[in-house]
């Protein structure tokens, strides 16, 4: 059993990586009161941009991730101009971004359909990788997975320990008050939204250049939406987001190891499992209205102008 379980757990970390990036980005944006339902679109745009950069430059994933970040940020910029500067409905703008991202990535991606990329070799952390069982699970991962964990630590630290973290929370809770004491609310929200875009872009580029290293239309397959759900599940807390991402990583990876683990269910059922789990998790967390309200950034989704 153990020899089957080790690849499942190790694979879980990789499958969780895009959710960690996209989820952290969305979490930061939502902390400032901006709900961006365009994560799926930004991930797709990041995925195709990353793939194109990796394939055309020959630089592989190393070129793909920064390209994905920039593309995701540009996509978020469109959203920000509409929803922050022009105070358009955030939900509709996010939806538009997703629809646009699906279209744009499919359009550009047509050109890259038959390409494949080398991907990234796992990076063994010297010493640690030799720890029995744990070593093969935790310390034999691709470099981007480590980067995701580092990003988590940084985001956690900034939100918990710094004045910037306090400010992000303050803007999300009461933009009027933040404005009254002299903070540039719109600029701060722009920053958080663009950060969210960059993170989603990296998540997408990871999928297309490292995780599956090839381009498939709509390859993000709802992970952007799951990331949004994870932020709710995490009640805007980065540590819970990390745990949630691992949980979903595990559920996602299950279908590839079902046979080995002796699970005899239709493949479609296993493939649908992450989406089903999202619904279940949302229901479990949302039914406690008080818990949500205590943690919900009070201005979330509400347009604000000075």
């Amino acid at each position, binding site marked *: 059993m153990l020899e089957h379980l080790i690849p499942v757990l190790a694979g879980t970390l990789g499958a969780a990586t895009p959710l960690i990036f996209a989820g952290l980005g969305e979490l930061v944006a939502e902390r400032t009161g901006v709900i961006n339902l365009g994560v799926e679109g930004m991930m797709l745009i990041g995925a195709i941009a990353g793939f194109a950069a990796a394939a055309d430059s020959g630089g592989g994933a190393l070129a793909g991730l920064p390209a994905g970040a920039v593309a995701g940020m540009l996509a978020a910029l469109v959203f920000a101009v509409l929803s922050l*500067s022009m105070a358009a409905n955030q939900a509709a703008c996010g939806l538009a971004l997703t629809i646009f991202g699906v279209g744009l990535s499919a359009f550009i991606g047509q050109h890259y359909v038959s390409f494949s990329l080398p991907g990234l070799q796992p990076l063994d952390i010297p010493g640690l990788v030799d720890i029995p069982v744990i070593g093969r699970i935790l310390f034999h991962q691709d470099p981007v997975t480590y980067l995701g964990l580092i990003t988590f630590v940084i985001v956690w630290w900034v939100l918990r320990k710094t004045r910037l973290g306090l400010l992000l929370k303050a803007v999300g809770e009461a933009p009027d008050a933040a404005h009254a004491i002299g903070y540039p609310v719109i600029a701060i929200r722009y920053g958080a939204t663009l950060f969210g875009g960059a993170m989603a872009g990296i998540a997408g580029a990871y999928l297309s250049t490292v995780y599956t290293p090839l381009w498939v239309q709509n390859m993000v397959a709802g992970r952007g939406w799951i990331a949004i759900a994870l932020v709710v599940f995490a009640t805007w807390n980065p540590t819970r987001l990390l745990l949630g991402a691992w949980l979903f990583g595990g559920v996602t990876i299950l279908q590839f190891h079902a046979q080995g683990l002796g699970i005899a269910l239709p493949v479609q059922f296993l493939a649908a499992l992450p989406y089903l789990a999202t*619904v279940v998790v949302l229901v479990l967390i949302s039914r406690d209205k008080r818990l949500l309200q205590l943690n919900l950034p009070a201005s979330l989704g509400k347009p604000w102008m000075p």
Partner: protein
Amino acid sequence: MPLLEPRSTPSAQMRLLSPLIAIGLTLAVGSVLFLALGKNPVEAFTVFFVQPLSSGNGWSELMVKAGPLILIAQGLAIGFRARIYNIGAEGQLIVGALAGGGVAIALDGVDAWWVLPLMVVAGAIGGALWGAVPALLKTRFNAEETLTTLMLTYIASFTLSYMVNGPWRDPEGMNFPQSIMFGDPALFSPWFEGMRVNASILIAAVASIAFWIFTSRSFLAYQLTVGGLAPAAARYAGFSAQRTVWVSLVLSGLTAGIAGVGEVAGPVGQLNLNISPGYGFAAIIVAYLGRLNAVGIVLAGLLMALLYLGGEAAQVALQLPAAITGLFQGMLLFFLLGTDVFVDYRLKPRPKPAYA
């Protein structure tokens, strides 16, 4: 310094102009795109918007595509007025198709007039039930309908995949993931020889009239609108928020379900993995482009159908990827949201220099 300031009264003029400006901007950016791809914009637009309508079959295809778009968008618009964001119409369409298709498969060989109506009813119920699930989750457990409707879409499409790969797979279909072809009693028969337009378009037409009366005249639609514009005012007036959720999601599920039957009992003729080219998502744009207004939605649905046809034509005539349709759809929605801002806001006059 913000560049916009609120208008004291929303501009009725801008409300009508906004979609036209958005279409114009989309065409303008489209021209640039065509130029960048080395195509002549005039020729490209001819291929896109004129060529598809230059034959009888073209008009037939326009109706075939506009029908489901309009039908779904009418239902979605009810919810959008109430700010209930059902973005899973695609899933409700699939479940409607599964329910209707299930009836067709079960009654294969039965030659009776009631087979097709039964399919439509089954599809309506299937779609409505799939819409009722997020309604229940929202009213009972407070779960965000945007996320649940979309997740249920993925679940619906895996269910479809399971059914056409497993229990309902055509035994003589060479292992393709598809059901048997439906018999004539389970199909809308085409009106004209060699064209695909059929009576299902009438369902969209009747629904459009019904929705027009409903939205413009009924007190229930008024309550939904108030719920969307000012939830606190709806509570103050005593309008039920729960009913708003149920009506919005069940009604939009129902229309999407019927649209699903229209596809499998119409142009597709069976259950397979390609029963919808994203109608459920495109209908979101149709609803907004049509101002959430029943008449507007008919016009917007025709335009969006033309965009689909144009995309197909461009693929053949210009060797452009069909995905260009999706790109145009996204741009159109973006521009629309941008121009819509000017319904409630106007540009601020340039501030006079201080200390003048």
